[in-house]
């Protein structure tokens, strides 16, 4: 089965990113394919490389990065939502005159079309939100 995962909320504030992570991990362990993980609304905040969570708690961003690395996941942060919330890569920094970037290298910023494409190309869209 080919899954597309949509995550609507940022790390820690809501359980959405955690639930999505465990679902995605379980799906991969069962041999399913994850077409794309798409981060929308505050979900874009899962893509920052600058979090410093407490040592005794899970590191949500790094956990996604490791899973992404291990399974070559396409983890996409929506550009419009990212611009609103200040998640920036090199391209966005240049285009919008920002003096810094904060995207985690394992995530990529792209358009909403990626979500629509994922919904078309995958067999199941699973949404995690508030």
């Amino acid at each position, binding site marked *: *089965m080919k899954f597309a995962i949509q995550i609507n909320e940022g790390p820690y504030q809501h359980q*959405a990113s955690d639930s999505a992570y*465990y*679902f995605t991990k379980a799906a991969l362990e*069962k041999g399913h394919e994850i077409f794309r993980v798409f981060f929308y609304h505050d979900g874009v905040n899962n893509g920052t490389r600058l979090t410093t969570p407490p040592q005794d708690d899970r590191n949500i961003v790094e956990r996604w990065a490791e899973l992404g690395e291990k399974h070559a996941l396409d983890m996409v942060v929506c550009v419009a939502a990212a611009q609103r919330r200040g998640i920036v890569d090199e391209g966005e920094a240049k285009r919008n005159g920002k003096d810094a970037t904060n995207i985690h290298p394992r995530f990529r910023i792209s358009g909403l079309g990626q979500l629509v494409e994922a919904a078309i190309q995958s067999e*199941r869209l*699973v*949404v995690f*939100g508030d």
Partner: protein
Amino acid sequence: MSILHTVNKSPFERNSLESCLKFAQGGSSVLLIEDGIYAALKGTSAEGQVKAALDNLSVYVLGPDLAARGFHQERVIEGVEVVDYAAFVDLAAENDKVHAWL
């Protein structure tokens, strides 16, 4: 077509469960996750709704979310099945689509 409906909010906080149960077609499945697990507990004011739903829907509750909140099988309404993430994936695959009631 059968749908896997997910409900992630407590029935005492939001109307997501109520709406979900109102529109869910017979033969579909409802999975309670995150704060939605509270609807699976015996003795709540939501129990009637859930028991009635069991007449024509399959209702599941995500075990890890149940345990995190201090509850286990013995406090769960009879007929609501406790499942893990692997089973969540199976439910998503076995039903024709997934509908998240946020």
